[in-house]
């Protein structure tokens, strides 16, 4: 497709229209564009990278099967995120007893190894705290904090009222503060 001057949204609409007619290459391009966001949404909700990749693939397959029902009233990204959050919730229900949270890799820090360890531990604590939230609140928090969706977009994606978005987000943030405060005030300090 040679349309570099066309806005990204228009290119994406062309890809969607082609995919709705059965063009697998066009759908592949859509997968490529939204792969990272979908994997991250599921990863933030599940905490396991391999599970997140499998679930992300499942989400894209469901998207392909229901592509005929997509209407351009809302961004394609939000429509795919809706499918991805449903898949993630299904995974959590199924794997409730067996999901192991990935240990985070120890990334190097320019400030030195001690700082790297501290950053690593902080990142681990934050991730565990997010995963300790109830799924409904966790979903809203992930879409807001990590994907930057507006309240209206979250409401449309999850098919819930804006008031519910605000109350779940408020609960999630207050709960996170309590969980992270517990970690800060824990025995190691």
């Amino acid at each position, binding site marked *: 497709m040679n349309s570099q001057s066309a806005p990204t949204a*228009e290119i994406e*609409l062309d890809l969607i*229209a082609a*995919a*709705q007619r*059965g063009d*697998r290459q066009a*759908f*592949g391009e859509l*997968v*490529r564009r939204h*792969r*990272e966001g979908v*994997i*991250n949404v599921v*990863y*933030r909700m599940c905490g396991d*990278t*391999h599970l*997140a*990749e499998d679930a*992300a*693939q499942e989400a*894209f*397959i469901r998207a*392909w*099967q*229901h*592509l*005929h029902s997509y*209407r*351009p*009233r809302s961004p394609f990204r939000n429509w795919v995120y809706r499918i991805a959050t449903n898949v993630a919730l299904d995974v959590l229900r199924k794997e409730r007893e067996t999901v192991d949270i990935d240990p*985070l*890799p120890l*990334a190097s820090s320019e400030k030195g190894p001690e700082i790297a360890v501290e*950053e690593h531990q*902080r*990142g681990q604590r*934050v*991730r565990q705290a*997010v995963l300790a939230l109830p799924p409904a609140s966790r979903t809203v928090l992930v879409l*807001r*904090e*990590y994907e930057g969706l*507006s*309240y209206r977009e979250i409401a449309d994606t999850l098919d819930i009222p804006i008031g519910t978005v*605000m109350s779940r*987000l*408020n609960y999630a*943030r207050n709960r*996170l*503060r309590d969980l*992270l405060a517990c970690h800060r005030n824990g025995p190691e300090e």
Partner: protein
Amino acid sequence: MTEHVTAWLDAYHDGELRGRQLRRVEAHLAHCATCRAELERRRALAALLQESPPARDVTPPDRFVAQVGLRLPRRPAQPAWRRALEIGWRLAPLGILGAWAFVQAVFLVAGLATIALNLGLGGDLVAGWMTAPHAGPGLAELFSTPDAGLSDVARAVRLVWEGGERWGLSLTLYLASMAAIGLLYGSWLASWWARRQSHTQ
């Protein structure tokens, strides 16, 4: 003293407030240390949340896309009635063109037949079709024979023809059929444009 705006701090922090509500919260924050401290806690939490890194790339992007492609069913699922409707809609211009061609052919043949009859050519053929089975007048005598000597069909044709000649019925029919075909085509064009607009919005 105004009430605290704690309930609105999330929305304020997320840039979701507008107009009067935004001004009210900002005015309150200007002189309320409690709410400012609460807002600062929200900002600190947001910064802390970003310290949790995203998923590591286990499968390279190209391979991920290829894996999804291999798992896709043959076609996106679409109900049969929807597929039929889609095909019918796409073939509609052909059908309209066919209808136009048919109407043109009918009036062309009718016009040629009229000319032929006026010149006295092929009258027997048409007369044979229009007269009663037991025998009756030929076409040349159709318009001079009294009603009693004609078949029902011939009487009907003479009535229509004589009336039509007075009112230009054949011309009216032609124009009406052209208008109907034009209307059909215009409707299809409008639906095509509306679909295009809904895809680009």
